[in-house]
Protein backbone atom coordinates (compact mmCIF):
# COMPACT_ATOMS: atom_id res chain seq x y z
CA UNK A 1 0.00 0.00 0.00
CA UNK A 2 1.62 3.30 -0.98
CA UNK A 3 0.40 6.31 1.00
CA UNK A 4 0.06 9.77 -0.48
CA UNK A 5 2.01 12.03 1.87
CA UNK A 6 5.10 9.92 2.38
CA UNK A 7 7.51 12.83 1.77
CA UNK A 8 6.28 14.61 4.90
CA UNK A 9 7.08 11.52 6.93
CA UNK A 10 10.59 11.33 5.51
CA UNK A 11 11.38 14.71 6.99
CA UNK A 12 10.11 13.85 10.49
CA UNK A 13 12.57 12.68 13.13
CA UNK A 14 10.90 9.50 14.34
CA UNK A 15 11.17 7.38 11.16
CA UNK A 16 14.00 4.89 11.15
CA UNK A 17 16.30 4.81 8.10
CA UNK A 18 15.29 1.17 7.42
CA UNK A 19 11.64 2.11 6.93
CA UNK A 20 12.63 5.01 4.66
CA UNK A 21 14.82 2.74 2.54
CA UNK A 22 12.09 0.11 2.28
CA UNK A 23 9.52 2.72 1.29
CA UNK A 24 11.81 4.05 -1.43
CA UNK A 25 12.38 0.52 -2.74
CA UNK A 26 8.63 -0.15 -2.84
CA UNK A 27 8.00 3.10 -4.72
CA UNK A 28 10.74 2.26 -7.23
CA UNK A 29 9.29 -1.20 -7.85
CA UNK A 30 5.82 0.26 -8.38
CA UNK A 31 7.18 2.88 -10.78
CA UNK A 32 8.93 0.18 -12.78
CA UNK A 33 5.72 -1.86 -12.97
CA UNK A 34 3.84 1.22 -14.18
CA UNK A 35 6.38 1.89 -16.93
CA UNK A 36 6.52 -1.74 -18.08
CA UNK A 37 2.73 -1.80 -18.51
CA UNK A 38 2.43 -5.32 -17.30
CA UNK A 39 -1.06 -5.42 -15.90
CA UNK A 40 -4.62 -4.26 -16.47
CA UNK A 41 -5.66 -1.37 -14.25
CA UNK A 42 -8.92 -0.60 -12.55
CA UNK A 43 -10.07 2.52 -10.72
CA UNK A 44 -12.86 3.56 -8.41
CA UNK A 45 -14.36 6.70 -9.83
CA UNK A 46 -16.87 9.10 -8.31
CA UNK A 47 -19.53 10.07 -10.88
CA UNK A 48 -22.94 11.64 -10.32
CA UNK A 49 -22.85 11.03 -6.60
CA UNK A 50 -22.10 7.33 -6.92
CA UNK A 51 -18.85 5.36 -6.94
CA UNK A 52 -18.15 2.92 -9.75
CA UNK A 53 -15.41 0.29 -10.14
CA UNK A 54 -14.17 0.82 -13.63
CA UNK A 55 -11.69 -0.86 -15.98
CA UNK A 56 -10.93 -0.78 -19.72
CA UNK A 57 -13.85 -1.72 -21.89
CA UNK A 58 -16.55 -1.43 -19.23
CA UNK A 59 -20.09 -0.23 -19.81
CA UNK A 60 -21.73 2.12 -17.31
CA UNK A 61 -25.30 3.43 -17.15
CA UNK A 62 -25.85 6.62 -15.14
CA UNK A 63 -29.35 7.87 -14.32
CA UNK A 64 -30.49 11.44 -14.26
CA UNK A 65 -29.96 14.55 -16.33
CA UNK A 66 -26.36 14.74 -17.59
CA UNK A 67 -25.29 17.24 -20.27
CA UNK A 68 -22.65 15.33 -22.32
CA UNK A 69 -23.91 14.34 -25.77
CA UNK A 70 -23.45 11.09 -27.72
CA UNK A 71 -19.99 10.55 -29.14
CA UNK A 72 -18.30 12.88 -26.62
CA UNK A 73 -14.99 11.83 -25.10
CA UNK A 74 -14.93 12.47 -21.36
CA UNK A 75 -12.17 12.29 -18.77
CA UNK A 76 -13.37 11.14 -15.33
CA UNK A 77 -11.39 13.17 -12.82
CA UNK A 78 -12.51 12.12 -9.34
CA UNK A 79 -10.51 8.93 -8.87
CA UNK A 80 -10.65 7.52 -5.35
CA UNK A 81 -8.55 4.43 -5.86
CA UNK A 82 -6.44 3.09 -8.69
CA UNK A 83 -4.96 -0.37 -8.71
CA UNK A 84 -3.12 -2.92 -10.77
CA UNK A 85 -2.57 -6.63 -10.20
CA UNK A 86 0.38 -5.96 -7.88
CA UNK A 87 -0.28 -2.70 -6.02
CA UNK A 88 -3.05 -0.21 -5.24
CA UNK A 89 -2.98 3.55 -4.90
CA UNK A 90 -5.48 4.69 -2.29
CA UNK A 91 -6.45 8.33 -2.36
CA UNK A 92 -7.34 10.41 0.67
CA UNK A 93 -10.04 10.97 -0.53
CA UNK A 94 -8.87 11.53 -4.13
CA UNK A 95 -5.73 10.33 -5.80
CA UNK A 96 -3.25 13.04 -7.01
CA UNK A 97 -4.87 14.89 -9.97
CA UNK A 98 -2.42 14.14 -12.81
CA UNK A 99 -1.65 10.57 -11.80
CA UNK A 100 -4.54 8.46 -13.14
CA UNK A 101 -6.22 9.02 -16.51
CA UNK A 102 -9.71 7.56 -16.99
CA UNK A 103 -11.33 8.30 -20.37
CA UNK A 104 -14.81 7.37 -21.49
CA UNK A 105 -17.09 7.81 -24.51
CA UNK A 106 -20.81 8.55 -24.27
CA UNK A 107 -22.64 5.89 -26.27
CA UNK A 108 -26.33 6.45 -25.84
CA UNK A 109 -28.75 8.74 -24.07
CA UNK A 110 -32.35 7.68 -23.73
CA UNK A 111 -35.22 7.20 -21.32
CA UNK A 112 -35.45 4.11 -19.15
CA UNK A 113 -38.40 1.73 -19.13
CA UNK A 114 -41.51 3.06 -17.36
CA UNK A 115 -41.06 2.78 -13.60
CA UNK A 116 -44.18 2.91 -11.46
CA UNK A 117 -43.99 4.74 -8.14
CA UNK A 118 -47.08 3.67 -6.19
CA UNK A 119 -48.29 5.61 -3.14
CA UNK A 120 -51.13 4.63 -0.87
CA UNK A 121 -52.35 5.65 2.56
CA UNK A 122 -54.79 3.10 3.78
CA UNK A 123 -58.26 4.11 4.91
CA UNK A 124 -57.54 7.70 3.86
CA UNK A 125 -58.74 7.52 0.23
CA UNK A 126 -55.27 8.41 -0.95
CA UNK A 127 -53.80 6.38 -3.78
CA UNK A 128 -51.76 7.45 -6.78
CA UNK A 129 -49.36 5.98 -9.32
CA UNK A 130 -46.52 8.11 -10.63
CA UNK A 131 -45.23 6.78 -13.99
CA UNK A 132 -41.74 7.95 -14.63
CA UNK A 133 -39.09 7.40 -17.29
CA UNK A 134 -35.70 8.61 -16.13
CA UNK A 135 -33.03 9.80 -18.56
CA UNK A 136 -30.18 7.29 -18.74
CA UNK A 137 -26.73 7.78 -20.25
CA UNK A 138 -24.54 4.86 -21.26
CA UNK A 139 -20.76 5.26 -21.11
CA UNK A 140 -18.02 3.04 -22.52
CA UNK A 141 -14.78 3.30 -20.52
CA UNK A 142 -11.96 3.45 -23.04
CA UNK A 143 -8.87 3.68 -20.86
CA UNK A 144 -7.74 3.46 -17.25
CA UNK A 145 -4.04 4.21 -17.12
CA UNK A 146 -1.54 5.39 -14.53
CA UNK A 147 0.30 8.02 -16.50
CA UNK A 148 2.79 9.37 -13.97
CA UNK A 149 5.39 7.98 -11.64
CA UNK A 150 4.35 7.78 -7.99
CA UNK A 151 5.74 10.35 -5.54
CA UNK A 152 6.70 12.78 -8.27
CA UNK A 153 5.17 16.08 -9.36
CA UNK A 154 2.39 15.62 -11.95
CA UNK A 155 3.04 16.68 -15.54
CA UNK A 156 -0.29 18.12 -16.78
CA UNK A 157 -2.49 19.49 -14.05
CA UNK A 158 -4.99 22.24 -14.77
Amino acid at each position, binding site marked *: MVLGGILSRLFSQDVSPNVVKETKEVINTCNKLIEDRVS*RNFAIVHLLGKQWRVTDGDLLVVEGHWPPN*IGDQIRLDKVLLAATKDFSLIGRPLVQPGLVNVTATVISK*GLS*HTKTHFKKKRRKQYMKIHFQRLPQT*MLRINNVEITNRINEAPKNVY
Partner: protein
Amino acid sequence: MSNSNLFLKSGFVRAPLQNGVGRYVCQLQRIVLKFCKSHGGSRGMRDFIEQDLVDFARDNPSVVVYLKPRRHRSPVVVAEYLNGDRVWMSMQNKTQSEITKWIENMRTQQGDLSAVRLRKYQYTDHPSIQGPWTPFTFKNPELNVAKLPNPKFGANDRLPMSATEQLRIMFEKQRISKEEVKEEKKEE
Protein backbone atom coordinates in the same frame (compact mmCIF):
# COMPACT_ATOMS: atom_id res chain seq x y z
CA MET B 1 -37.13 -5.50 -6.70
CA SER B 2 -39.23 -8.43 -7.82
CA ASN B 3 -39.87 -9.25 -11.45
CA SER B 4 -43.49 -8.30 -10.87
CA ASN B 5 -44.21 -7.25 -14.43
CA LEU B 6 -43.38 -10.42 -16.35
CA PHE B 7 -44.30 -8.83 -19.67
CA LEU B 8 -41.37 -6.42 -19.42
CA LYS B 9 -38.27 -8.44 -20.27
CA SER B 10 -35.20 -7.92 -18.12
CA GLY B 11 -31.70 -7.78 -19.43
CA PHE B 12 -28.22 -6.52 -18.79
CA VAL B 13 -26.35 -3.55 -20.14
CA ARG B 14 -25.12 -4.30 -23.64
CA ALA B 15 -23.81 -2.22 -26.51
CA PRO B 16 -24.07 -3.52 -30.08
CA LEU B 17 -20.79 -4.35 -31.82
CA GLN B 18 -18.43 -2.95 -29.11
CA ASN B 19 -19.57 0.59 -29.92
CA GLY B 20 -17.23 3.14 -28.42
CA VAL B 21 -14.14 0.93 -28.26
CA GLY B 22 -13.20 1.75 -31.85
CA ARG B 23 -15.02 4.68 -33.40
CA TYR B 24 -18.48 5.68 -32.21
CA VAL B 25 -21.37 4.99 -34.62
CA CYS B 26 -24.75 6.70 -34.22
CA GLN B 27 -27.26 3.90 -33.84
CA LEU B 28 -30.27 5.54 -35.50
CA GLN B 29 -30.57 4.32 -39.08
CA ARG B 30 -33.70 5.97 -40.45
CA ILE B 31 -36.71 7.92 -39.27
CA VAL B 32 -40.13 8.02 -40.97
CA LEU B 33 -42.47 10.94 -40.27
CA LYS B 34 -46.08 10.31 -41.20
CA PHE B 35 -48.49 13.23 -40.93
CA CYS B 36 -51.68 14.77 -42.35
CA LYS B 37 -51.44 18.02 -44.27
CA SER B 38 -54.61 19.53 -42.89
CA HIS B 39 -55.82 17.80 -39.73
CA GLY B 40 -55.39 19.59 -36.38
CA GLY B 41 -53.56 16.78 -34.57
CA SER B 42 -50.66 17.05 -37.03
CA ARG B 43 -50.14 20.75 -36.37
CA GLY B 44 -47.07 20.32 -34.18
CA MET B 45 -45.67 17.80 -36.66
CA ARG B 46 -46.18 20.19 -39.58
CA ASP B 47 -44.50 23.00 -37.64
CA PHE B 48 -41.58 20.71 -36.84
CA ILE B 49 -41.19 19.75 -40.49
CA GLU B 50 -41.31 23.36 -41.62
CA GLN B 51 -38.89 24.73 -39.04
CA ASP B 52 -36.64 22.13 -37.42
CA LEU B 53 -36.47 19.21 -39.81
CA VAL B 54 -33.94 20.60 -42.27
CA ASP B 55 -31.54 21.47 -39.43
CA PHE B 56 -31.97 17.98 -37.99
CA ALA B 57 -31.24 16.35 -41.34
CA ARG B 58 -28.21 18.57 -41.91
CA ASP B 59 -26.78 17.91 -38.43
CA ASN B 60 -27.26 14.14 -38.76
CA PRO B 61 -26.23 13.06 -42.26
CA SER B 62 -26.11 9.45 -41.09
CA VAL B 63 -29.88 9.35 -40.52
CA VAL B 64 -32.19 8.93 -43.54
CA VAL B 65 -35.38 10.97 -43.07
CA TYR B 66 -38.54 9.93 -44.93
CA LEU B 67 -41.69 12.03 -45.03
CA LYS B 68 -45.10 10.45 -45.66
CA PRO B 69 -47.96 12.90 -45.95
CA ARG B 70 -51.12 10.79 -45.57
CA ARG B 71 -54.63 12.18 -45.49
CA HIS B 72 -56.90 11.48 -42.49
CA ARG B 73 -54.15 9.65 -40.57
CA SER B 74 -52.72 10.62 -37.19
CA PRO B 75 -49.11 11.75 -37.06
CA VAL B 76 -46.61 9.08 -36.24
CA VAL B 77 -42.83 8.76 -36.01
CA VAL B 78 -41.14 5.41 -36.68
CA ALA B 79 -37.43 5.13 -35.85
CA GLU B 80 -35.35 2.17 -37.04
CA TYR B 81 -32.07 1.27 -35.39
CA LEU B 82 -28.98 -0.63 -36.50
CA ASN B 83 -29.75 -3.58 -34.22
CA GLY B 84 -33.15 -4.05 -35.87
CA ASP B 85 -35.40 -2.35 -33.29
CA ARG B 86 -38.37 -0.35 -34.55
CA VAL B 87 -39.78 2.34 -32.28
CA TRP B 88 -43.28 3.54 -33.17
CA MET B 89 -44.48 6.70 -31.46
CA SER B 90 -47.67 8.66 -31.92
CA MET B 91 -47.26 12.42 -32.20
CA GLN B 92 -50.98 13.21 -32.18
CA ASN B 93 -51.69 16.57 -30.53
CA LYS B 94 -48.08 17.07 -29.51
CA THR B 95 -46.56 20.52 -29.73
CA GLN B 96 -43.56 21.27 -31.90
CA SER B 97 -41.16 21.52 -28.95
CA GLU B 98 -42.36 18.18 -27.56
CA ILE B 99 -41.82 16.54 -30.97
CA THR B 100 -38.32 18.02 -31.16
CA LYS B 101 -37.47 16.57 -27.76
CA TRP B 102 -38.83 13.11 -28.61
CA ILE B 103 -36.97 13.03 -31.92
CA GLU B 104 -33.77 14.09 -30.16
CA ASN B 105 -34.36 11.28 -27.67
CA MET B 106 -34.78 8.78 -30.53
CA ARG B 107 -31.59 10.03 -32.14
CA THR B 108 -29.45 9.47 -29.06
CA GLN B 109 -30.87 6.04 -28.05
CA GLN B 110 -29.25 2.84 -29.21
CA GLY B 111 -32.46 0.90 -29.75
CA ASP B 112 -35.74 0.54 -27.90
CA LEU B 113 -34.62 1.19 -24.31
CA SER B 114 -38.18 1.12 -22.94
CA ALA B 115 -38.54 -2.57 -23.77
CA VAL B 116 -35.92 -3.86 -21.34
CA ARG B 117 -35.60 -3.49 -17.60
CA LEU B 118 -31.90 -3.22 -16.73
CA ARG B 119 -30.94 -5.57 -13.93
CA LYS B 120 -27.56 -3.97 -13.27
CA TYR B 121 -26.17 -0.65 -14.32
CA GLN B 122 -22.69 -1.93 -15.05
CA TYR B 123 -21.09 -4.42 -17.37
CA THR B 124 -17.53 -5.62 -17.16
CA ASP B 125 -15.56 -8.42 -18.78
CA HIS B 126 -12.99 -8.51 -15.97
CA PRO B 127 -14.73 -8.58 -12.59
CA SER B 128 -11.49 -9.49 -10.81
CA ILE B 129 -8.05 -8.10 -11.61
CA GLN B 130 -6.11 -8.85 -8.44
CA GLY B 131 -7.42 -12.41 -8.53
CA PRO B 132 -10.67 -13.65 -7.01
CA TRP B 133 -10.56 -15.01 -3.48
CA THR B 134 -9.91 -18.74 -3.23
CA PRO B 135 -9.61 -20.73 0.02
CA PHE B 136 -5.88 -20.90 -0.72
CA THR B 137 -5.35 -17.12 -0.98
CA PHE B 138 -4.39 -16.33 2.62
CA LYS B 139 -3.47 -19.84 3.71
CA ASN B 140 -0.06 -20.26 5.34
CA PRO B 141 2.14 -22.41 3.02
CA GLU B 142 3.79 -23.99 6.05
CA LEU B 143 0.57 -25.93 6.57
CA ASN B 144 1.55 -28.08 3.56
CA VAL B 145 4.48 -29.72 5.34
CA ALA B 146 3.25 -29.38 8.92
CA LYS B 147 2.40 -32.49 10.96
CA LEU B 148 -0.96 -31.92 12.54
CA PRO B 149 -1.89 -31.59 15.42
CA ASN B 150 0.64 -28.78 15.78
CA PRO B 151 0.62 -26.45 18.82
CA LYS B 152 1.56 -23.46 16.60
CA PHE B 153 -1.35 -23.95 14.21
CA GLY B 154 -3.73 -25.19 16.87
CA ALA B 155 -3.24 -22.23 19.20
CA ASN B 156 -6.27 -20.24 20.15
CA ASP B 157 -4.96 -16.90 18.92
CA ARG B 158 -7.47 -15.83 16.30
CA LEU B 159 -8.96 -13.11 18.51
CA PRO B 160 -6.96 -10.62 20.59
CA MET B 161 -7.14 -10.86 24.39
CA SER B 162 -10.51 -9.66 25.65
CA ALA B 163 -10.92 -7.17 28.49
CA THR B 164 -12.37 -9.86 30.76
CA GLU B 165 -9.30 -12.06 30.25
CA GLN B 166 -6.97 -9.14 31.03
CA LEU B 167 -8.83 -8.38 34.27
CA ARG B 168 -8.68 -12.03 35.27
CA ILE B 169 -4.91 -12.15 34.74
CA MET B 170 -4.44 -8.90 36.68
CA PHE B 171 -6.51 -10.35 39.53
CA GLU B 172 -4.49 -13.59 39.55
CA LYS B 173 -1.21 -11.65 39.74
CA GLN B 174 -2.15 -9.52 42.70
CA ARG B 175 -3.87 -12.40 44.49
CA ILE B 176 -2.27 -13.55 47.76
CA SER B 177 -1.53 -17.28 47.34
CA LYS B 178 -1.77 -19.98 50.06
CA GLU B 179 2.04 -20.26 50.36
CA GLU B 180 2.40 -16.54 51.10
CA VAL B 181 -0.31 -16.76 53.79
CA LYS B 182 1.54 -19.75 55.39
CA GLU B 183 4.86 -17.83 55.31
CA GLU B 184 3.27 -14.81 56.99
CA LYS B 185 1.80 -17.05 59.67
CA LYS B 186 5.19 -18.69 60.26
CA GLU B 187 6.85 -15.30 60.62
CA GLU B 188 4.23 -14.34 63.14
